[in-house]
């Protein structure tokens, strides 16, 4: 139990950005090991810059260190240069707090925010000195746990993790600590006993406690559409639950964490204070896994938000705070909170010789904003100085497609927001869109370009510098969403759509197009909806050197394709195949509380272009979460926020209409469109009707 710092220190002059590995952040605890404490090593399987700001990890770090029977430290994926140095020197993964070997801990717990980090998880377990496969671990090895959004389908990692936690971790980490504590006190007898006890903790899923059966090939050796499908997922023991439910904290006000936010010594991706204003979202966007798995909405009390902002800024010395949530303009008390935060800052600031408070300029960040004029007004209130860029996510280019995905932004809201932003001095706007959404036609795709063009037209009335950046990403269907049955677009189809947009925006002055690598979306699709058999592919990609797959310079889809080939599995079957209602999905035994019937009905409603409203302010449609878990929305305001239209019970039949004139579009030459459309139009309407089962084979 000693620090490895003397061995690590000589390696750091040899690596890029060595400050990532020293710890020493403001706000860290004083982790003391020993006294029978259960030692947690909280891991983020990506670089320090990406992982340090992660609020989930910071919250659990603090909660565990407050317990007398636990101690927690942090670790992040060492970049490839340090990994090579560590392996060369025979050194293991280490904590950044006290630079202890990972092997000195009892639990290695990963936060999985995304799927492409799965190979990094394997790499870090290996670097920690534990066998990568859970079945090979002994009583002396680490207990490997995963949590976070991507752990809602942990099946691709089933062979590598000992347990996955579904949902929010605040309470369950204590219960896991209790179980492990008892097991250690009892003399660390066999691992199966420990795993079986963990499986009894609500929210904890132990893959080894479940048997997955697959359809066998037909007797005559022929295949049909069912071959390779899962036929059953069953617990191995009677005391293991058939279904694992997610954990949900009923009242966010009981958990004012992090109380001591970490401020790093080196630059990270979100270099500011973050205060979470609410959890959950019931806007009901059908592509959005976060909105589906974090229900219901639980707002933090407004005065607690104010206190946390004031304390956090005073402790860290930051002058910028993000009020985080899935849709911050929906926070009931957003306007008074913003005013209150600014008042508190003025009150706390030193008074200058002129009697005025000094140095109280505070930037309030409102991420994930709704698209409407009210929101722009808010952004104006908090952003008096810098009005360079504003970001919105309409997600789809036409009202029709937005009804399919239930992102019910009417055209009036959209152009109203744009008008409002440019008139208040913003000059640049960033718009996020998804391509490859269910039922998408080329008209929908090109609608993105048209929408951007109109935004620039509106902007030009206010400033010659008006520009719009359109950022498109390929849609990856996620588990526990209404789109979980949808066959993801192929890499080629994504590229064709990107080409359509490139061609359409090429001559649009002021419109810049950016796109996410479609190949990465394909790999993400593998990990998102894969089953246990995909674990072999992930292990092979890792063994072939495929770490840091979220980083373009390290990602190569051919590595994934080769691994599928070598393992005798079909990438097409896992990623591009439409699922049917009777298919046993790999995560069928795991639930975020959403009724399977609700999800399927919502999928059918999507195909029928029918929207659902936000149940915060309109009657409950029984998705299953509140009723099933006996919890409910914690929302201060009984009425929808001003300005927003999305899902608030208003008349949406005229959603595509405009009350303010927008310049008539210039006709796009038809020849241009034809020249880039390489595939027949029939392919673009792949899913205009209910999905039909496609055949595929898995051997």
């Amino acid at each position, binding site marked *: 139990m000693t620090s490895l710092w003397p061995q690590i220190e*000589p390696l750091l*002059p040899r690596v890029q950005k*060595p400050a990532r590995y020293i710890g*020493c952040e403001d706000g860290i605890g004083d982790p003391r090991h020993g006294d029978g404490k259960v030692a947690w090593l909280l891991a983020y399987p990506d670089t320090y810059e990406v992982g340090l700001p992660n609020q989930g990890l910071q919250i659990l770090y603090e909660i565990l260190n407050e317990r007398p029977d636990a101690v927690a430290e942090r670790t992040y994926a060492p970049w490839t240069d340090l990994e090579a140095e560590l392996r060369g020197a025979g050194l293991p993964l280490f904590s950044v707090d006290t630079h202890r070997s990972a092997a000195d801990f009892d639990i290695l717990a990963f936060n999985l925010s995304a799927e492409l980090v799965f190979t990094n998880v394997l790499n870090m377990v290996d670097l920690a000195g534990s066998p990568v496969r859970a079945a090979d671990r002994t009583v002396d090895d680490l207990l490997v746990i995963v949590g976070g959004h991507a752990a809602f389908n942990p099946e691709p990692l089933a062979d590598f993790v000992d347990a996955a936690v579904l949902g929010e971790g605040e309470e369950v980490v204590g219960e896991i600590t209790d179980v492990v504590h008892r097991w250690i006190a009892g003399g660390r007898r066999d691992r199966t006993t420990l795993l079986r006890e963990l499986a009894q903790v609500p929210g904890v899923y132990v893959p080894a406690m479940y048997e997955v059966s697959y359809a066998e090939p037909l007797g005559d050796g022929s295949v049909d559409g069912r071959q390779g499908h899962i036929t059953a997922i069953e617990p191995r023991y009677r005391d293991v639950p058939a279904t694992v439910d997610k954990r949900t904290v009923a009242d966010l006000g009981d958990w004012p964490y992090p109380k001591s936010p970490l401020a790093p010594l*080196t630059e990270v991706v979100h270099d500011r204070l973050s205060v979470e204003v609410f959890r959950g979202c019931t806007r009901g966007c059908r592509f959005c896994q976060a909105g589906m798995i974090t229900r219901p909405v639980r707002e933090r009390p407004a005065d607690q938000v104010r206190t946390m902002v004031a304390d956090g800024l005073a*402790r860290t*010395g930051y002058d910028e705070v993000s009020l985080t949530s899935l849709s911050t303009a929906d926070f009931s008390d957003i306007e008074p909170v913003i005013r209150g935060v600014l008042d508190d800052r003025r009150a706390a*600031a*030193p008074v200058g*010789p002129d009697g005025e408070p000094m140095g109280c300029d505070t930037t309030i960040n409102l991420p994930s904003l709704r698209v409407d004029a009210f929101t722009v007004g808010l952004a104006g209130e908090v952003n008096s100085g810098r009005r360079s860029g504003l970001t919105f996510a309409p997600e789809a280019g036409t009202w029709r497609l937005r009804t399919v995905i239930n992102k019910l932004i009417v055209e009036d809201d959209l152009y109203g927001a744009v008008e409002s932003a440019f008139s208040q001095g913003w000059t640049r706007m960033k718009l996020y869109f998804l391509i490859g959404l269910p039922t998408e036609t080329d008209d929908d795709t090109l609608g993105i370009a048209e929408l951007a063009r109109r935004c620039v037209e509106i902007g030009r009335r206010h400033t010659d510098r008006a520009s719009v950046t359109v950022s498109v990403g390929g849609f990856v269907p996620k588990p526990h969403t209404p789109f979980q049955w949808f066959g993801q677009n192929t890499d080629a189809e994504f590229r064709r759509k990107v080409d359509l947009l490139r061609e359409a925006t090429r001559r649009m002055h002021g419109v810049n197009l950016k796109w996410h690598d479609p190949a990465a979306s394909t790999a993400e699709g593998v990990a998102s909806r894969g089953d246990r058999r995909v674990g072999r592919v992930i292990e092979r990609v890792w063994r072939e050197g495929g770490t840091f797959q979220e980083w373009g310079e390290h990602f190569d889809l051919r590595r994934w394709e080769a691994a599928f080939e070598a393992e005798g599995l079909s990438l097409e079957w896992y990623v591009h195949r439409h699922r049917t209602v009777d298919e046993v999905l790999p995560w069928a035994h795991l639930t975020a509380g959403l009724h399977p019937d609700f999800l399927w009905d919502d999928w059918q409603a999507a195909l029928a272009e029918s929207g659902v409203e936000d149940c915060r302010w309109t009657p409950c449609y029984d998705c299953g979460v509140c009723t099933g878990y006996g919890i409910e929305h914690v929302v201060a305001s009984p009425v929808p926020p001003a300005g927003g239209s999305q899902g608030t019970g208003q008349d949406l039949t005229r959603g595509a209409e405009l009350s303010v004139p927008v310049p008539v579009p210039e006709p796009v030459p038809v020849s241009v469109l034809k020249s880039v459309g390489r595939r027949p139009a029939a392919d673009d309407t792949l899913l205009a009707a209910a999905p039909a089962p496609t055949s595929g084979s898995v051997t």
Partner: protein
Amino acid sequence: MKLRVRYSKRGKVRFVSHRDGARLWERALRRVGFPVATTNGFTPRPKLGFGLALPTGAESVAEYIDIDLVAGSTLDMADPDVARSLSDALPMGMDVLVLAERESVTGSLQDDVTSTTWELTGPGLAPELLEPAIQRVLAADELLVERERKGQRRTDDVRPLIRDLHLDASTDAVVAELVTVGRALRPSELAGALAPHVDPLDVRVLRTHQWIEHDGRRREVLPLPDAVDALERGLSA
């Protein structure tokens, strides 16, 4: 009121870059609530002046920062709590050694500092090998070193940049005073010239002094009080 602070950077924080150091200072000054003046303009920044960059990985007991306070505001420099609170707001390993008022006419650190003193230690820097190497360098008229600047390799005579070079009798460290004007000589480059068999990445570097020479008189930017000096020497031994 304008301040000049001498501070240390020792231990793990030696891996924090000069650029990150600037962000650290801004946060620390906000935490202690110093009335720091800000630049005018669209995005006001605190008025801070940083001295010569310390290479990432090097330690120092002679780092400097200039801080401009809002016109008309004052700090009680004699109150030890003022310096202590600032040290407390800085990361472990960074401590305020001297806090002084700076005359308005004082030039910037970047412009005024003419030379800096370094201590080099590390495995392979054996005194019996270094002593002859040091004598050779001191006796030579020129010392050609090939080095890279802004992506271009070039050979420079660095002998005029070496003002002093000797072994510290008690610690066996190489002590070098290097001129900072013009294309300065980095301590790692000096180590390479003295001991070609040693990987410069294995050399531990400590900056101990920054000097201002004016009209033939050399003085330290802010000398350490004796008590602090003794403590720091103890730490570095």
